[in-house]
């Protein structure tokens, strides 16, 4: 799977939010999309999912996402919106099963393969223990995991997730980052799925992502391995913070301690 974004511009109302983003990614990768509030992370992800009009191009294996047939696109790109929720008090397992809608033939019940995908997704997101509960009676963090399970159940080659760990407790933050990491892990043949996650927790981003893309003012400020992107200079210029950094690998940390402006 190869994702190519070329000179992408997108606006929200009169505001020109994404101002010429180009990037290329292929194969099994866990990409973190980081940057301060309002720099266009969500808008970029929504454009990549063909949810909003944009200029420039977004292609998956050479096929433009905006001209793909909707069901084919739904099988290729799974999307978890920021702060997503449910309008009806659906049962958890029913809600996760909605992730299989792009795969169902008309008038057909879910096949065993769909049931298996639903079970895998529920197990990965650790929501089996409340599978029979009404989603509106869950806590915010539990609900966020249910909605992530819904997106995982699509089993799409490209998974776009907008702030998947923002409302989770520390245990589940680590657990969900591991899930996303595993989702993007290559199989025996070296093929794998791609995850693009909008993240605010820089420590988690540094520990789990293969690659970070730092946005600022609607353009790519830095793009590369976490240690290349999360430099003191970049943190000061984009986030206007000073951070204490340390640790290595899965124990790296970036602790913001002061404003620099």
């Amino acid at each position, binding site marked *: 799977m190869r994702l190519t974004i070329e000179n992408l511009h997108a606006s929200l109302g009169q505001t020109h939010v994404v101002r010429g983003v180009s990037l290329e990614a292929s194969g099994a990768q866990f990409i973190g999309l980081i940057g301060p509030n309002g720099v266009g992370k969500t808008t970029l992800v*929504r454009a990549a*999912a*063909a*949810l909003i009009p944009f200029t420039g191009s977004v292609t998956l294996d050479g096929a433009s996402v905006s001209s793909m047939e*909707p*069901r*084919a*696109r*739904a*099988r290729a*790109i*799974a*999307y978890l*919106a920021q702060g*997503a*929720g*449910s*309008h*009806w*008090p*659906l*049962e958890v397992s*029913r*809600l996760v099963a*909605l*992730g299989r*809608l*792009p795969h*169902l033939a008309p008038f057909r019940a879910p096949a065993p393969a769909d049931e298996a995908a639903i079970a895998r997704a529920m197990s990965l997101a650790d929501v089996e223990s409340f599978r*029979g509960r*009404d989603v509106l*009676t869950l806590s915010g963090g539990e609900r966020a995991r249910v*909605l992530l399970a*819904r997106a995982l159940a*699509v089993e799409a080659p490209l998974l776009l997730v907008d702030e998947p760990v923002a409302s989770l407790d520390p245990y589940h933050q680590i657990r969900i980052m591991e899930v996303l990491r595993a989702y993007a892990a290559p199989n025996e043949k070296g093929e794998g799925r791609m995850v693009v996650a909008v993240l605010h927790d820089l420590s988690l981003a540094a520990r789990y992502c293969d690659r970070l893309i730092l946005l600022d003012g609607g353009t790519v400020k830095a793009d590369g391995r976490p240690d290349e992107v999360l430099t003191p200079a970049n943190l000061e210029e984009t986030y206007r913070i000073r951070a204490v950094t340390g640790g290595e690998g899965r124990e790296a940390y970036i602790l913001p301690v002061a404003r620099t402006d």
Partner: protein
Amino acid sequence: MRTRPLNAWLVSATLALLVALLFALSVYLGRGGELLADKFRTMSEIDRDLAWLVLTEVRLPRAALGLLVGATLGLTGAGLQGLLRNPLAEPGLIGASGGAALGAVLVFYFGAAVGSVMFVPLGGIAGALAALATLYLLAGRNPSIVTIILAGVAISAFTGALTSLALNLSPSPYAALEIVFWMLGSLTDRSMAQVWFVLPFMFAGWLLVASTARALDALSLGEDTAATLGFSRRSVTLRAIAGTGLAVGAAVSVTGVIGFVGLVVPHLMRSLVGPRPASLLLPSALAGAALVLAADLLVRVPVNGPEPKLGVVTALIGAPFFLWLILKTRKEAP
């Protein structure tokens, strides 16, 4: 403690049996609750053709319309609540009922109703289609839910005002009375020709609404998520709104306005089969048919005096029932 939703197919099968029973009762039960079986038998001994005519041209259209209109209101109510993700939505919201009522009233106003039994439904359908076309023009090519609701409310208000104007300027008190009585909603004195006339519109409407079933499920998670699950917002909205307008417009054009069925039935079914929009469509259609058939049996109970109008009875039962439902939900809420 919430009870687990019952199996939707089991509920549907039970409701289908109930509808069949009520349909048979509607054909055979007369004024004051008298069973007409013996009368039919005596009549057919005297004049076979007349008995057949009474059965097919008087009793059958009434029962058939009860079934069709009830199913339409239940199905479109459930569909619209799913589309708008709002439990207060009801089929009249998008303005097609108002348009149909206005079209039919204009036929009465110009005294054309005496010309043919088909003129009133024709006027109604024309009114419903005009309302839908206006909605499309107002809401634009890619309408948002809010625009649809606002445009629907505006159309309903405007057609309501024009209907009042027609009453206001009515050439004779008889015409005014005719209009008022027609608007109260009733299944009496309808003909089989009217049933055949509205059937294709209703059927097309049902198919359009039913075709959105899975999209309505996906819409539970919001428009963005539904779009990334492969359902185009524009196509789903157009199908659901056009289907609702066609079916409800056709229903109103022959029976007048029958309120509360489309609002209450999906709520009742939600407490039986759970809140998933797709699983609500069939049970709501069946329960709507059962409710309208039952209410139409109820209006026959008084032996003397004018028959209560069906639309009045459904609202009289529906409104308190709806209140009870709200109280019950409030108690269950955590």
